């Protein structure tokens, strides 16, 4: 197990290193000259001298490998650079904004997991019952409806119509409910389907028949035997949904006017703020890689069958 962890961490570091080079090169090779952009913002119709001076200030006149080493070295010691648009420190901007996105994601993820697994378990208690039959149309509708439309309809109902909840902003629990629901609905429906299918498979195993023939209750078997058996596929599917939620957060933060890290990326894209885009993409890649690594290691920690398969594969 320890050997597996070390090897898995090694691969992840390698993937992260490669991603950092790719992200840096992609942004560096983008059409349009950042020095020109900055110079234009400082003074309209900047002449060539000003542009060259700005280029020197930004260090863009050096060879690419030097620029890369400089960039990654600064990031390693915590200096994330300066935004072209606002001239502010990217690190302190993110320190302000990441907690906002984290709050959004955690709320939505908890909702998706609880609602999704809840629906799946209820469906397994009563196969073919109302909850079970509703889960397919619900999944279809919730992956089809654009999240910004869902958000608008929710605002129309709960903020404009009933006046129960604020229509936008980020101040406390009441203003979080609609964003959480908007972001969490599609993952919840997908999780409900995935878990339901896995549970059905689990319930068709011989040990379930044995347990039933011994007279144990169906519901008890679902909770005590079937659910623990599907922990790994559930976790893998959930991790994929969390990845999708990070991108969903871009739209949700935008429509509810939350000043989160996803909105920060959107602003950077709109203004072609290259340093911010570079850092954001790097951090996103890192988060993605950490998530996948964690899931891989945790799967083996949870499921002895995977560990055994691995040990056999190695010998």
């Amino acid at each position, binding site marked *: 197990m320890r050997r597996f962890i070390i090897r898995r961490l090694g691969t992840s570091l390698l993937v992260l290193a490669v991603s950092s080079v790719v992200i840096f090169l*992609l*942004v560096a090779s*983008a*059409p*349009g000259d950042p020095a020109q952009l900055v110079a234009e913002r400082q003074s309209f119709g900047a002449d060539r001298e000003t542009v060259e001076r700005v280029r020197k200030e930004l260090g863009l006149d050096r060879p690419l490998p030097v620029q890369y080493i400089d960039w990654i070295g600064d990031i390693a010691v915590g200096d994330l650079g300066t935004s072209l648009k606002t001239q502010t420190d990217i690190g302190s901007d993110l320190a302000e904004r990441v907690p906002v996105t984290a709050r959004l994601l955690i709320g939505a993820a908890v909702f998706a997991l609880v609602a999704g697994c809840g629906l799946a378990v209820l469906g397994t208690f009563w196969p073919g019952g109302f909850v079970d039959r509703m889960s*397919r149309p619900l*999944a*279809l*509708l919730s*992956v*089809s*409806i*654009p*999240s*910004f*439309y869902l958000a*608008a*309809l929710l*605002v*129309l109902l709960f903020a*404009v119509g009933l006046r129960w909840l604020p*229509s936008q902003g980020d101040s406390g629990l009441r203003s979080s409910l609609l964003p959480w629901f908007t972001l969490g609905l599609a993952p919840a*429906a*997908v999780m409900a*389907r995935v878990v339901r*299918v896995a549970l059905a498979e689990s319930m068709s195993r011989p040990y379930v028949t044995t347990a039933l023939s011994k007279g144990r209750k169906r519901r008890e078997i679902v909770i005590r035997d079937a659910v623990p058996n599907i922990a790994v596929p559930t976790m893998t599917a959930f991790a*994929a949904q969390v*990845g*999708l939620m*990070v*991108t*969903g957060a*871009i*739209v949700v933060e*935008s*429509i509810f006017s939350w000043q989160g890290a996803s909105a920060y*990326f*959107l602003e*950077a*894209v*709109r203004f*072609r703020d290259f340093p911010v*885009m570079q850092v954001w*993409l790097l951090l*996103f890649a890192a988060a993605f890689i950490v998530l996948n690594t964690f899931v891989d290691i945790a799967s083996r920690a949870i499921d002895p069958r995977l560990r055994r398969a691995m040990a056999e594969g190695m010998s």
Partner: protein
Amino acid sequence: MARARSVLVALRAVPKLSLAVIAAFVLVGALAPVIAPVDPNAQDLLRPLEGSSSAHLLGTDDLGRDQLSRLMQGARTSLTAAALVLGGALVIGLLIGAVAAMRGGLVDEALMRLTDVGLSLPSLITALATLGLLGPSYSNMILALTIVWWPAYARLTRALIISIKTRPYIEAVQLMGARQSWIMFRHLLPGAIGPVLVYATADAGFIALSVATLSFLGLGVQPPNAEWGQMLVSGLPFLETNPGLVIYPGLALTLVVVGFNLLGEAVALDKVPRPLSRRAVRRRRADALDALAAADAPRLGRTTAGEVTA
């Protein structure tokens, strides 16, 4: 009993209904310039934000433009953009997949690792990053979404062609001395295209959704061109007074996406309405499922409604 039967009948009607919905939108989009009551971009600043009237059936927006005409024009914009992206992704995907399958070895390995990267990244992030690098515009949006969507088709095509390549009739053609390119264009690609199109049906809805999302974020179709996502975002400030400006574009978009998803599911499960349903479709579907299983299905990444509801 009677109720159970009516539910069954209704269920059987779903694929036909979804086909009808899509056909209706395609028709409206194609005929938009002819059937739209008013020029969709004609402003009438004296009559902004009006309700429904005989002159403007669905009222006007904040610039006094006719909402109904803009919705029709929006169908045209959205479906054209989706078709361009899907066409581009199909052509690139088919070519790359075919080359990877035919060449094998290092070329195959390199191309497939490239698709791995594409499939492992969330589609919206890739699209946004591309637009950030190139600058937001309509053509860059089409390009960005094509970049997002081709890897799935490359993988699928590669898997299909590899499975077809080993069949006896291909060996026979090879023994007869046919050139590689002849086999590719005459036998392998025609065999692969059916299942790929089946997969594309389910994808079309998500592509339309992405076009709208990017336009909603202000990075796709630019004003004054009418597009549903863009109409929705410009209607948001008037949500309280004129909710129709938000409700109708969103409804049109949702209907199209649901329609494509239902149709994609129906095609994959071979519940296609008469004109399309032949034995060929059934065979294609079997091919598609085989290939998907062979192509290491989870790596296809994107959660399609088909998988979700299967």
